């Protein structure tokens, strides 16, 4: 869930703007449509090249910064500022198995990757490193790519704590 950030320190001069303009990925969105059908969740058919085909990418930047490349569609508190990391939850929380995704470009290799923003749940708002970027975010009627929803679903508590940004795989070109 997640929203906010920016307005606390980002005004009309949106610091994320230049990044977003360089990394627009709208063309990929049509390929990542996992939808809720018939009261159940379909397994999303992600356009992912698995890791055995593509070795782990090199990355640069500060994972505690909202401008880090993986956070292009995140909206919430960065788990790396809450006792976890960009791909793990803080101690004593529970990772949601259901989530929303983004498609972000890694500036090091110029490739786009599918990012799973699994929320960490069961404790109240971490409150640290609030980050909101909405590249590829879509309204809640398109839930798989919507960051307005609290994705603490399928966990013992739906209380939202922070969000991770886990690389699922490389996005395939159109």
């Amino acid at each position, binding site marked *: *869930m997640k*929203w*906010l950030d*920016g*307005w*606390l320190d*980002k*005004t*009309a001069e*949106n610091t*994320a*703007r230049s990044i*977003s*303009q360089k990394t*627009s*990925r*709208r063309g990929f*969105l*049509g390929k990542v*449509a996992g*939808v*809720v*059908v*018939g*009261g*159940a*969740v379909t397994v999303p058919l992600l356009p992912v090249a698995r890791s055995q085909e593509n070795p782990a990418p090199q990355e640069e930047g500060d994972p505690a910064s909202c401008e880090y490349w993986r956070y*292009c*569609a995140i909206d919430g508190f960065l788990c790396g500022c809450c006792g976890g990391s960009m791909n793990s939850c803080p101690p004593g929380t529970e990772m949601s198995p*259901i989530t929303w995704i983004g498609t972000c470009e890694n500036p090091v290799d110029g490739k786009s990757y599918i990012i799973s923003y699994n929320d960490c749940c*069961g*404790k*109240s*708002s971490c*409150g640290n490193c*609030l980050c*909101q*970027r*909405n*590249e*590829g*975010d*879509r*309204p*809640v*009627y*398109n*839930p798989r*790519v919507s960051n*307005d*929803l*609290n994705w*603490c*679903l399928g966990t*013992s*508590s*739906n*209380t*939202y704590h922070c969000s991770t940004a886990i690389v699922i795989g490389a996005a395939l070109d159109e």
Partner: protein
Amino acid sequence: MKRLILLTLIFASSAFGQVQPEPTGVIQTLPAPWPAHWIIAHDVAFFHMSDGKFYVLDAESDDAATRVKGIFNGAFIAQFIQATSRPEMYILETFRSRGSRGERTDVLTIYGKDSLAPIGEVVIPPKRASAMPTNYHLQLVDDEKLALIYNFTPATSVSVVDIVNREFLGEIPIPGCSLVYPMAGRAFASLCTDGSMMSVQLDENGEQASTARTGEFFDANDDPIMEKAAMIDGVAYFPTFLGRVVPVDLNGSEPEVGQEWSLLGDGDEGWRPGGIQVTERDSDGRMYVLMHPDGYEGSHKDPGTEVWVFDVANKRRVDRIELQLPAISMGMTNDDDPLLLVTNVNLELDIYAAKSGEYQRTLNNFAAETVLMLYGAE
């Protein structure tokens, strides 16, 4: 001598008036109806969500202390709607038995406008969508007899509550669709991922009588419609990310998609709608849209620097209000001389005269932290 002084003091104080003993236990109430320029500011308390608050404020007051008329609670990113036919407000809340953990209970809480106290509640299935606030998680239909609640587990459905008798009636599945838009009579519509709108007619028991589906009229990825529609005379006006407007008439038995038009005219290239509550409407049926220049992919929640005003019947812009500070969300009072209410980027409330666009005042320093939704008193 001492006795004389004491007697003199007692005499003097009573003669010139001392602070008199006062009764305890006095609790204020509010007038009915509320003055037209009282507003409700929803502080979602993003940093401690279980403690959200709604502030009742006099938007015409320049006194930071006395402009606060009262406060009521809304737990865990509540959703909110006011009745117009009775002095009640409805808050969709989530509680857990151990605070951040334990058994979940979802409640539709009923507040009286005069007492500002909870006067009733309906326990509903613990499925209500937990999400940023919009106007379409909780709606009233059938002359405000039914309350409809959007559920997301992530299976989607709508809980139906008889709000007059304060009783949960049942749950309607809306597979692949989201949110509740009020339709005429005992009916609602929802937006679907496939680009259509689903409508549901309810029977006298609040159960599904029939459903219908429009054709696909929007793309959920490419220039999608924003779910934050302006409702004017039963028509939902959906702005799109890139600045089109798609009207859907909800006055009939099924939604009727109208002809789209554009918010943008010559020279408006790059302007886009953006923010939390992006649209509003006034008592004359004009539509207000929060707009920002130099739009880009992902700017649909960026602060707006202007509010554009549209005559929806003639599909043309009639005014352009330049905000003194960019704003993230909008509200409007419901009278004939309405106030435009915005949350600015400092998370203060700026008040404008809607018809002239003139800035009036800033409401701040009343302890709210993250006011994301604003409402005029009904």
